[in-house]
């Protein structure tokens, strides 16, 4: 199910981004931001494949977080906003929200779910036993 949703999203988002880059209106900027924020997460769901369900909560939380950050940036763009940590709020949102904060979240989510969607020892041993190197041609 997650694979199907990801594929549908990527298939629709790709031409939509292309259109946004050709039109260049204010609406296109918002559309590009919203789609670009979700694009990598859809690829992660596609890559997680057989057990993307285990990631569901984590991925949805990341999606909401990234979208909120980008919508914040778009809303603050060109406006006189308050400052936080010595920088304008939008810059802080970019450096802390989009850059620093997700690093441990994404990396630990991967490690935490590795045994389920990553690579189980028995799967690796089975693959080596069945195919070994060179037996498949290539």
């Amino acid at each position, binding site marked *: 199910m997650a694979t199907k949703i990801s594929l549908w999203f*990527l298939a629709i988002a790709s031409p939509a981004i*292309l259109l946004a880059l*050709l039109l260049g209106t204010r609406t296109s900027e918002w559309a590009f931001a919203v789609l670009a924020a979700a694009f990598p997460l859809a*690829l992660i769901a596609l890559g997680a494949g057989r057990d993307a369900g285990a990631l569901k909560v984590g991925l949805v939380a990341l999606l909401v977080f990234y979208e909120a950050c980008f919508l914040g940036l778009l809303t603050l763009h060109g406006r006189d906003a308050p400052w936080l940590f010595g920088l304008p709020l939008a810059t802080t949102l970019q450096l802390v929200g*989009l850059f620093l904060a997700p690093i441990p979240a994404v*990396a630990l989510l991967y490690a935490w779910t590795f045994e389920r*969607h990553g690579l189980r020892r028995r799967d690796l041993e089975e*693959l080596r036993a069945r195919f070994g190197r060179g037996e498949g*041609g*290539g």
Partner: protein
Amino acid sequence: MTGLAQPAVIASSLAYLAVVLAIGVWAARRTHDARDFFIAGQGIGLVVTTLATMSAAFSGFLFLGGPGLTYRLGVSSFFISVPVSFTAGLLCWTVAKRLRLLAEVREIYTVPDAVLARFRSRRASGLAAVAVIAGTVGYLGAQLQALGLVLDSIFGTGLAAGMAVGVVVVLAYAVAGGMVAGVYTDVVQGALMIAAALGVFYYALESGGGLGAIGRTLAESSDFGPGFLDPLGAAPLTALGFYFVFGVGVLGQPQMLHKFYMLDDPRKLKWFPLALSSSQALVVLLWIGIGLAVPALVASGRLAPLASPDDAAPAFLLGFAPPLLAGIVFAGVLAAIMSTADSFVNIAAAALVHDLPKAFGRPVRRELARGRWAVVGVTVASALFAFLYGDLIALLGTFAYGTFAAALAPAFAVGLNWRRVTPAAATASIAVGLALNLGLELWGRQAWFPALPKPPLAAGALPSAVALAASFTVLFVVTWWTSKGDDDVDADVAAVMEM
């Protein structure tokens, strides 16, 4: 001022060069066959793979090009490195495991090898090899340009002479050691840069009076102004394009994908995102620190306006960092450039002597010897291209990164995870991504036909973002058009894709 006035800068840089040459000699002794030359004998552990991947991703492009681009565009340029927050995870979830497992079941050295294994299409594999060569010429050109700038900053050689010296050093190094030399230089470089980046970040903030003072100086400056600190900048499509290309395009970067073949045990991928993203984040602090401090120093009159934005990092290091730290950073930047250049020339050499002949059905004998000649050709071509391109290091790097991204990311990201993607779809996607990125870049920059209008893109739209979106679109359209539902994948590759 050049580094010649500061003996500590010269001493640190020369000491580093001695270490690099020692690694080259040691690596040459360990390089016995093509497997050693191209994938370091597939015997590299997690820490080495992490530092090698980080070093391949961060090079002269980040250390010199990054602060230069920030000086020109403002903090919107940070969107090139912001995706570091998720790219390591994205790589692992989407392609790393499958690429590494392909190397378990097949004799795979290169990115086009993986395309051939997955799609059984020599056309797709050959086109992937062409994309690798085209992107490499751009990326290696950016490295050589950065190398010329560093040598000019330290020794006052001038950019062209610095690039020429750089070509000779890179050639001697890469021809001898192949990928083993590149990987182990990456380790030295990565460790050095993490330590140096923290030091530079501290001195950058201190030189500007702290983050708050730097921010206020920039916001009140008539040269930079509040727009400098707006993440979406003057052209939001450029900032968002950086995020899209550098976030999603990571899945098509052969200099990073290639490293997964070298990992000795695929289960070590579990901690790879944590190790890679944290080390990358620490190194990015160097860009952020210098990128914010230098314009603030210029705005406050403590530093003369830069003749070229690419001078931002050298100007800061020589004028505001302690000489020992400056020497370490210059040495680290030299190492970064050398290791990345080495990785690239070997990847391109593999494309020339391994992938393209294979795509034409005429495998080359004595790949190792021919590979060393290919290294010479690729390096010289890259230096000439960089010289003719004549723009900022980061813009040349973005073009090269975009070439890999648009040509290869969709075929890998979707093709390795969805069995319905057909060879025709992969071929069309690679061809469109490659042609569109090169075509739009050349069209936008050409001056031979003044009457020709600019490409029909929105203001600020990056050609590489357009090419990447188009390449994904073509992949889906052609898949739906040509797929008959029954996938055509070899049993071993299908097993890898199922895992």
